[in-house]
């Protein structure tokens, strides 16, 4: 099979980008989408043109490095997989495939299809952890956790931090990302002590980074490569309200960082 790709090229953050169209060489339908880009890049290199910059690393759907909006959908046509797990068998011979970077104000474009997702790290730094110094932990079986609670925590923890949720949302909201982390930690006994500070601080960091609000369209969970459910957004809202109320009854607001 052969395809054409209409791909976003942009030299750097400051410059203005635009689409360019390239023909693929003969492809095998068992190739991954990124392998298709690899072979086009080999051709471009041989012709002395700069290869298309795109992010990738593990190529097995777990590191969250790959991005790309393919034909208008973050991570491509299939549900529940990342771009690196998308295969050419999902396309037809002769297709023209549009490939763009994740677009969201908090994620500036570095080059071509590569964006900077640093604000996600900032949010985690604000509260996405349990404060436990190395060496200070009790025996792991000292705190039994019901299988149900552990399973829900795992569902939330499966997030790979790719940012597709933000790219899919017209408001560039990061609530699915934040909701998943908050739900994981706030749902576990280990996370109780910092429950309120966690949610308040993470939401504050999210706002500060310029992510928008959730208006319940749930485009985010629809494109999530790990199918993280938007129930975690509801959980985030509940925890946030409860924490806000509890804080208002305290004489002094707790400081952000413990």
């Amino acid at each position, binding site marked *: 099979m052969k395809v054409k790709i209409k791909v976003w090229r942009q030299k*750097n953050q400051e410059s203005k980008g635009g689409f360019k169209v390239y023909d693929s060489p003969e492809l*095998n339908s*068992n*190739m991954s989408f*990124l*392998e298709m880009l*690899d*072979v086009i890049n*080999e051709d471009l*290199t*041989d012709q002395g*043109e*700069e*290869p298309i*910059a795109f992010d990738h*690393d*593990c*190529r*097995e*759907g*777990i*590191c*969250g490095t790959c991005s790309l909006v393919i034909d208008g959908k973050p991570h491509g046509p299939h549900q529940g*997989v990342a771009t690196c*797990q998308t*295969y050419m068998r999902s396309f037809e011979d002769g297709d023209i495939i549009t490939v763009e970077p994740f677009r969201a104000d908090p994620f500036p474009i570095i*080059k071509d299809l*590569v964006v*900077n*997702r*640093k604000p*996600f*790290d900032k949010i*985690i*730094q604000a509260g*996405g*952890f*349990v*404060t*436990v*110094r*190395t*060496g*200070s*932990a009790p*025996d*792991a*079986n000292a705190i*039994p956790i*019901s299988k149900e609670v*552990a*399973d829900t925590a*795992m569902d939330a*923890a*499966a997030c*790979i*931090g790719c940012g597709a949720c933000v790219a899919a949302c017209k408001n560039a909201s990061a609530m699915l990302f934040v909701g998943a982390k908050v739900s*994981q930690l706030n749902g*576990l006994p*280990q996370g109780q002590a910092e429950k309120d500070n966690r949610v308040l601080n993470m939401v504050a960091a999210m706002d500060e980074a310029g992510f928008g609000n959730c208006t319940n369209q749930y485009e985010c969970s629809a494109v999530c490569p790990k199918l993280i459910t938007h129930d975690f957004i509801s959980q985030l809202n509940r925890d946030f309200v409860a924490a806000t109320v509890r804080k208002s009854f305290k004489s002094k607001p707790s400081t952000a960082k413990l």
Partner: protein
Amino acid sequence: MKLDAKIPSGPLKEKWEKYIADSKLVNPTNKRKYDIIVVGSGLAGGSAAATLAELGYRVKCICFHDSPRRAHSIAAQGGVNAAKNYQNDGDSVYRLFYDTVKGGDFRSREANVYRLAQVSSNIIDQCAAQGVPFAREYGGLLANRSFGGAQVSRTFYARGQTGQQLLLGAYSALSRQIGLGTVEMLPYTEMLDLVVVDGHAKGIITRNLVTGEIDRHAADAVVLATGGYGNVFNLSTYARNSNATAIWRAHKRGACFANPCYTQIHPTCIPVSGEYQSKLTLMSESLRNDGRIWVPKKVGDKRAPGDIPEDERDYYLERKYPSFGNLAPRDISSRAAKQVCDEGRGVGETGLGVYLDFEDAISRLGESVIRERYGNLFDIYKEITNENAYEVPMRIYPAVHYTMGGLWVDYGLMSNLPGLFVLGEANFSDHGANRLGASALMQGLADGYFVLPNTINNYLAGQLGNRPSTDHASFDEVEDEVKETINHFLNNKGKRSVSSFHKELGNLMWTYCGMGRTKEGLTKALELIPQLREEFWKNVNIPGEEGEWNQSLEKAGRVADFMELGELLCRDALTREESCGGHFREEHQTGDGEALRHDDEFASVFAWEYQGKGKTPLLNKESLEYENIQMATRNYK
């Protein structure tokens, strides 16, 4: 060079305690006067950076990814071992120690491995407290599974994403410190060289991958936790960007490289399907708990698996190793797969594959139990191959997965270069010639959370005030060299892409230094690699510019290092005239095709010392003394 492992005296059980008791301490107010650079943010680097910062040191952590959460530890699927004996099945620190030494084919240090087994339990406690969602039983206690090379159930897991969850745990601890301002995190930053001042590692040179800027960083100690070098084979289960540059440049600045030929070929990966392939995907070893491995008995049997009757199937692992069966260690299982394929009994289009069949497990336990245990792995398999493993058996074949070799370190994880510490897969220390499943996560976290934070003080205590300024002449020199290399690449304007060279090198390594190695093949490789390297420097084509994001340029530096490391790997394999663990020299095998060690001559660590460009490296040996375990022929029958 005399390599002193500095193993504490006294009985095995008390060595670590004694080491800590005898250590020099750095007083709390002095700790903040020390700068430590940690390169890498995976399990080892992330946990080390977080813990050192908690202790009060000033830490700078660098990674080439956009975020410290991306390191390839994240892809580990199966689990993490610990001698908790929660299952009451006879496990103990000693048994984990013994299994690991035996699994490593008696080529690791007893004292290191014992310590690893000792701290393994603390890792589980630490991670559970961080909120790592380990699998639980209905009563709420932690669940375990079995892994290859062990007859007890000591592996803790979080679905098929244990590496991800442990890494995110370490990342959360690191993030907390970054938020507190005790760790300065530099993402998008690649270490390009090590700076040595008066014989001590005192800094690094980095390139900012976004802006192309070259920077100098001085420190009191440098910690490398940059992972393994399996991408020297090009096709592997490693992430595409995993590379050996940090450890290789450190090697060229004086750090000995130990046992480079100990590479692990993992038995259960999805077979290669074509030329274009960019990476191989692992199917977790945990699948071997319930899957049965087989090939047809008849050579060239092309029938569909379902059409091959039971008595015409060869469950070769169960046949050859009845007591471990499908859970035989990785090196042994991989070799057995290669053997049956070499005999012409391999399956799939290429004939390079064997079946991993769940039919029995599904009829015994029901599909839903199998789905619960391995659902995500079956999904991954489906995406890649377009086949449903609930209905037809998986096809698997061995692939490069891990490197046991790495920079030489002493008991305190310091290399022969004072001030340079090496953790996790980047060092050579704990797995001997073969690593057991679920032991990489254990070692990475042991090194980072519990070992280094108790050993680095021994070095630092004598170093207050010795941190050089970045104006020191050594920084000038190293930076010039780094820039020269970059300029060469960009101005070369050759005819071939970096990737084409990487592919060629990988093919060469896999052909001559893969699962079966011979004197003839290795000698050939030692002729071909330098030729390829010469062609690479002459003819490589790097488009783009210096002062910007340039993935071809990044890759060129990494492939340049693989070209040199590959040669050392082959030289080590040629020099080690025996078979052990993942290193199989065809000339050295027993009558029934098992690895044949020669303990009299080779019970030692080979630590290679760089001698300069174009010169043969110098071989130093550290002999391995077994005081507690009797070396024996590994037997999994």
